[in-house]
């Protein structure tokens, strides 16, 4: 009897420590801290180096126009990657975001005839609802996130295509709508989508780092059973992160439609891969339990800078962009695994 109780107490103490470790990824020993530092800020260092080299090599890189264009085109992917960061920290994955991005764009463009509020809320509601279904299937029915969101990816694109008569109808954002102003206007020299993205990221970072929900997200990804033992609402947390991912993907699509002044049906193909790449490059572990919102922003910028550099070279075919992104992802994943293994050993 006593032995059992001690074992239970030990188990609780152990899970408590794991939860604390999950909530505070910076370890105690020096080399552990170094690994964590590389993991967290490695992408930022690479971003700085690549940008510095690019601005020295190409006169057209560090111009205001080019930077501001890059910032705006990064904004949409960044909003998607923000939701993906939450999902991946819980140890899940969301493959449906590309389809939801396209669906959100079409819904926003169609909804703009009924006012800007409808244009923004409709895609967030519909895509959020698909996120709820994803979350329910994953959390309550315990189906693999990969497969559930794969199905949602097919289903959401199918829904979008049937709404647009198999992609034949293009919905234009209503003339004179505030939505177009929101997407195309600038504030203090930066496009409005960039400001919206920045606000969302600050909010995301605060929620992840400072709120009880944020702690639950880390705990669920760190060790689901331990989190449940500690009384964290595992299922609810999962449902919320997939909903959040859906809402943000829909919002990103709406902002993109506002920027383009139309809902483009072919958008979002492969976007889930870009978003996952950005999150992973930014130092979030695909095994869950560890991750940074700021890292994902850096990851998105890095992908876009690489893309821009390849465009600047001009003579290089744009296919090289995929080769470089793939190689980059492989290098980052190998480095992450290596750093992670070192930290486990220490």
């Amino acid at each position, binding site marked *: 009897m006593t032995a059992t109780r001690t074992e239970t107490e030990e188990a609780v103490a152990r899970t408590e420590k794991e939860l604390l470790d999950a909530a505070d990824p910076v370890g105690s020993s020096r080399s552990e801290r170094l690994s964590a530092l590389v993991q967290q800020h490695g992408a930022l260092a690479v971003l700085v180096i690549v940008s510095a080299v690019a601005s020295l090599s190409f006169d057209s890189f560090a111009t205001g126009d080019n930077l501001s264009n890059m910032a705006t085109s990064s904004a949409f992917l960044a909003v998607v990657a923000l939701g993906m960061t939450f999902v991946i920290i819980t140890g899940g994955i969301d493959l449906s975001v590309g389809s939801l991005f396209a669906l959100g764009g079409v819904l926003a463009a169609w909804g703009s005839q009924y006012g800007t509020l409808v244009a923004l809320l409709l895609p967030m509601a519909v895509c959020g609802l698909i996120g709820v279904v994803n979350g329910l299937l994953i959390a309550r029915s315990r*189906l693999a996130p990969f497969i*559930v969101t794969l199905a949602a990816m097919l289903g959401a694109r199918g829904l979008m*295509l*049937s709404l647009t008569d198999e992609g034949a109808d293009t919905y234009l954002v209503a003339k004179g709508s505030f939505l177009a102003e929101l997407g195309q206007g600038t504030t203090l020299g930066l496009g409005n989508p960039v400001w919206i993205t920045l606000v969302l990221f600050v909010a995301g970072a605060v929620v992840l780092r400072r709120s009880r929900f944020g702690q639950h997200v880390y705990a669920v990804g760190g060790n689901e059973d331990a989190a449940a033992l500690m009384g964290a609402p595992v299922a609810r947390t999962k449902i919320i992160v997939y909903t959040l991912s859906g809402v943000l993907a829909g919002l990103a699509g709406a902002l993109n439609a506002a920027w383009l002044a139309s809902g483009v049906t072919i958008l979002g193909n492969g976007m889930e891969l870009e978003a996952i790449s950005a999150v992973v490059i930014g130092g979030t572990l695909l095994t869950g339990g560890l991750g940074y919102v700021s890292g994902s922003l850096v990851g998105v910028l890095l992908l876009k800078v690489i893309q821009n550099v390849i465009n600047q070279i001009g003579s290089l075919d744009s296919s090289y962009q995929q080769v470089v992104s793939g190689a980059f992802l492989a290098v980052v994943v190998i480095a992450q695994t290596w750093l992670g293994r070192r930290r486990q050993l220490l």
Partner: protein
Amino acid sequence: MAEAAIRPAGLDRARVLQWMQTYGVYAGVAVLLVVNVAVTPHFLSAENFRTQAVQVAPVIIVALGMALAIGTEGIDLSVGAVMALAASVTALYLGYGLVPALLTVAVFAAVVGLANGALVAWVGVQPIVATLALMVGGRGIALVLLPQLKDLHNPALASLGSGDVLGIPYLIVIAAALALLVAFVIRRTTFGRQLLAIGDNRAAAKLAGLPVRRVLMLVYVACALLAAVAGVLATARLQASDPTSLGNLMELSAITAVVVGGTPLSGGRVNIAGTVAGAVLIQLLTATLIKHDLPPSWTQIAQAIVIVLAVYAARGRGKR
């Protein structure tokens, strides 16, 4: 109590789900065949069967490799990219003859497979991430090698794509032969047993002294080679190399075929007959919807529903 008494003993939920998982795919195929025979004009023609079978053959071949990867509790997202790569390399080397071109394709595919396998087996990266890198990079390489669609005029390749033996197209003969081969390897060879043991419990397999890394490497090489075969056959059928769109979403179709066919994503079991039936089921579903003038978007929604149903049926089976 009353409810339990009313319900027939053989029909409790677990047994229904288990039956669905094992035989659901065959039942699905049978239902679709019956429905089509009843309501689709010209369904029962040799021409139609030939078209459907030739279309499904590459999917079956890719799904065979995917089944091996899933059997080890892995996954291979790079199969579509490997198909595109195979198409590009075929187009580039066809000038030297069909056989040298095919050998070069095999070398390229083996390199991709080795890279995937090394990341999974040696570096210890999760399969979904390891193969994601080559999914992105592989199509890039295919497009760098051959930036756009190229028509191929090669009699040997043409006969591979449209020829037949005793009235059965080569594509179907090859797909059937490969399915038998993979089923044999899984059931009757040491390698097959080791593969399933690793999928069942990798740590235990390692403790038992199985060559875990070597088996994983071979699985991803086999998966890439099978995808390359599918890429070459699809290219032969189209008489054109199309690195931009060949194999797009093929990883999804292959995973769907495997899962719908009753192979659990948690590894340790592989159902090859079910995988073939799974591919046929998706093909029939698509064909049925298209023949009745339902828009392609419905196909995607239907496929999504089939995936969720299949995984739901497989839920809780196998290990956690």
